[in-house]
């Protein structure tokens, strides 16, 4: 069977189109002069790189702790509040990092309620009387970003735990080994690593939080060079450093997975039994799950609600209602597009490709690591170049929704791919072979065998993409049509002028809009589990 077939050729073409804007960034990096490099090397670059690495290490570790521990507790133990926390733990994903940065600063700063309370309580008079950690610091950034990013790890890890066969656990029990360390963790590694990779890429590309907290990362550097030195090519060059870090990350992820493929021949015994535990242990479980939920959701939502109440008079509810509708339909449509492309790419890479094609498809995920604005610029540059080549009247596309959708795909494909790949990799190749041997076409095999097996993964990815697009700011800002606002741009235009009351309600809606799909997802996962359970008996 040739590897250049009716499946792989279109997929490789799509993948190339998705890589093209990233290449456009590289092109402009090499086009420009490199005169800035000696200056950057001797001044800011070491600092940028160091800060970026520290931030990645911090956010990666804390997100892992939050995500994996909660996923395990929720899957394994029974305790009061579990039914709610099971899906509530995903909710912080809907809180944009820039919003949590604003709200936390407001909450923890000198004039905020926390320090105000402490001053009243201890009788301190001013900032010289006591020490309080500055939220606008590396530590603050790690805390804030981990609180909203850990759900990526939680979701993917939990999906892995849920589909781990019980027989493994029984085996470990027989040998008296620790189930979590020796069975669950190693088996969930693809899910954990997929989640971690997303968290790290999101951390690298973040601009809103690091800008607000004045943490000098590479991404902040990109903008200083671009706008401060009027050098887009210099900015692209720094972006290329970002890109290198990501390629290293993705390669590590790939290598980690290559040596350990996890296949399951059946899906019949997938329900891990819940363990009964002591009351004390139940309280511990509850507290461990409440910490990230409180940090990533409860506190910011309470602060936002407070703003909504105090600013009730200045909030334009009609405008926000329209914006909400526009935002949700846009995100919904784009999420379906991204997930369809992701599914196609992952299965074709897995079943229908040679290594060259696999690399192309692999590279198509890299857009996630670029700062949104740079990616948006790369997109317009690429589309503009196409327009010069074959004139198709570009303004009908840029500033319509098509280019916006295209850019969303470039940016969020990694999320979809990560989610689906961690599902597909658990499917034993024999299943596909068996199906094909029985004379079923590839398409039908996908539909009848693969799709049902990765359905949960598609949902998980789809919801993450939906929520990601709902809160996406820089790409939407630059590529949207005239007079068009999404909830995120609406929040931004007020929040950037510190009009938090006006922006609070729309911000709250972004968070709430994430509720629906999250609850839907959670109930779907449950139903699937139940179905499997009843099939078994």
């Amino acid at each position: 069977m040739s590897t250049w077939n009716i499946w792989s050729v279109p997929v490789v073409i799509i993948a190339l189109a998705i890589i093209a804007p990233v290449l456009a960034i590289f092109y402009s990096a090499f086009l420009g002069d490199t005169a800035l490099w000696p200056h950057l090397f001797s001044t800011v670059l070491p600092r940028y790189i160091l800060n970026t690495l520290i931030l990645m290490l911090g956010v990666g570790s804390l997100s892992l702790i939050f995500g994996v521990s909660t996923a395990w507790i929720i899957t394994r133990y029974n305790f009061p509040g579990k039914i709610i926390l099971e899906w509530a733990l995903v909710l912080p994903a809907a809180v944009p990092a820039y919003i949590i940065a604003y709200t936390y600063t407001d909450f923890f700063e000198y004039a905020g309620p926390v320090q105000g309370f402490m001053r009243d309580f201890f009788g301190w008079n001013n900032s010289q009387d006591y020490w309080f950690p500055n939220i606008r610091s590396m530590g603050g950034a790690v805390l804030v970003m981990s609180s909203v990013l850990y759900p990526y790890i939680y979701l993917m890890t939990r999906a892995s735990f849920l589909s781990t066969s019980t027989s493994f656990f029984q085996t470990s029990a027989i040998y008296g080994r620790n189930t979590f360390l020796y069975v669950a963790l190693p088996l969930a590694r693809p899910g954990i690593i997929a989640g971690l990779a997303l968290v790290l890429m999101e951390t690298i590309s973040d601009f809103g939080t690091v800008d607000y907290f004045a943490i000098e990362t590479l991404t902040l550097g990109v903008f200083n060079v671009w706008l401060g030195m009027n050098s887009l090519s210099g900015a692209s060059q720094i972006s290329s450093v970002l890109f290198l870090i990501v390629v290293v990350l993705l390669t590590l992820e790939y290598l980690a997975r290559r040596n350990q493929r996890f296949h399951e021949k059946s899906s019949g015994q997938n329900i891990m039994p819940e363990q009964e535990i002591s009351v004390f242990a139940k309280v511990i479980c509850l507290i461990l799950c409440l910490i990230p939920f409180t940090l990533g959701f409860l506190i910011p939502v309470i602060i936002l609600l407070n703003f909504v109440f105090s600013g009730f008079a200045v909030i334009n509810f009609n405008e926000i209602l329209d914006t909400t509708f526009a935002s949700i339909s846009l995100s919904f449509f784009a999420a379906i597009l991204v997930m369809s492309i992701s599914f196609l790419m992952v299965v074709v890479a897995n079943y229908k490709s040679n290594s060259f094609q696999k690399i192309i498809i692999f590279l198509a995920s890299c857009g996630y690591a670029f700062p949104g604005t740079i990616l948006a610029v790369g997109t317009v540059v690429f589309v503009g170049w196409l327009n010069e080549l074959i004139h198709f009247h570009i303004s009908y596309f840029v500033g319509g929704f098509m280019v916006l959708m295209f850019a969303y795909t470039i940016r969020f494909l990694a999320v979809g791919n990560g989610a689906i790949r961690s599902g597909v990799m658990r499917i034993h190749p024999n299943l596909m072979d068996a199906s094909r041997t029985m004379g079923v076409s590839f398409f039908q095999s996908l539909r009848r065998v693969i799709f049902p097996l990765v359905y949960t993964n598609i949902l998980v990815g789809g919801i993450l993409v939906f929520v990601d697009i709902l809160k996406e700011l820089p790409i939407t800002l630059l590529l949207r049509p005239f007079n068009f606002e999404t909830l995120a741009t609406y929040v931004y235009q007020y929040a950037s002028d510190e009009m938090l009351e006006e922006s609070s309600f729309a911000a709250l809606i972004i968070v709430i809009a994430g509720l629906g799909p999250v609850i839907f997802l959670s109930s779907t996962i449950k139903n699937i589990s139940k179905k499997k359970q009843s099939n078994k008996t």
Partner: protein
Amino acid sequence: MRKYLLILLASLSIDIIVINLAYANEEVNVYSYRQPILINPFFEEFTNSTGIKINVLHAKKGLLERLLAEGADTPADLVLTVDISRLTQFAKEDVLMSINSSVLINNIPFYLRDNNNRWFALSKRARIVAISKDRVPDGAIINIEDLANPRWKGKICTRPGSHEYNRSLLASIIAAHGEKIAEDWAKGLVANLARKPEGNDRAQAKAIYEGVCDIALMNTYYFGKMKFNEKNTEQKDWAQSINLVFTNQNDRGNHINVTGGGVVKYSKNKKNAIALLEFLTKPKVQELYSSMNYEYPVNPTMSLSAELKSWGEFKEDKLPIEKLAEFTPTAQKIIDRVGW
């Protein structure tokens, strides 16, 4: 379920096609670095008096790159920016047309517009020094150069140097003294900082109020926005705690930056775009810049509003404004070197 999904998808696809037909011919399409909330009142005035509708796209970064990529196909007619450096970039990339308008030339002094009439300043903002009413005596700071004096060690707060307002201030010092002295000044300033540069201009006033520092750099309109903030009344206290110092009144004058605009070379609707630009320089609209946003009018026939006057009339640095843009990249390099 599947049927509804298909209907939804179909209707969305129609949206995608139809939205582009909305850019009708007479309307003016604006790419704006300024937030819609700050310029919409002007646009409403314009639409009311002329019947011409205005469409806005606001972004803080990348509009120039989008315009360049769209080339001759661009739907944009007018560009509005908040910093001189951005404005001159548009001219440099040759995407603005030269406008022959006596209205603009009469309403805007020469040092606030392009030699070739491609861009025009529409409002001015002064970057001043805010000092604590209680802790810094009047007359202790007269010139911007004073901020590098070791006397103020641990007393100064600013936002990060890489912000365009600070970059442009440093560019004005380069223009006045040359790169070497400007770098020494920046070094001295950084040595005097009370804390790592963070937050925006308002946050610095707050820091003075809270006693974190005594001296800060600030754009004047923030003072107005704090002083009259009915929603966050605590900001009134911040404004109460500071005095404004217009610097260098005995030599070159206080540094100013501008907001401005220009008409896109490939505009499909130049007539109306120019009309809008002219409209923005008229006394009635210029007054709105002061009353709504506490910015200084560019139109020389205007006198200052009572509020702005109460802050003090001042001599401004009349360096041709595009010189600032010229020194901006050097300023950023100095900022990188001194770690501001």
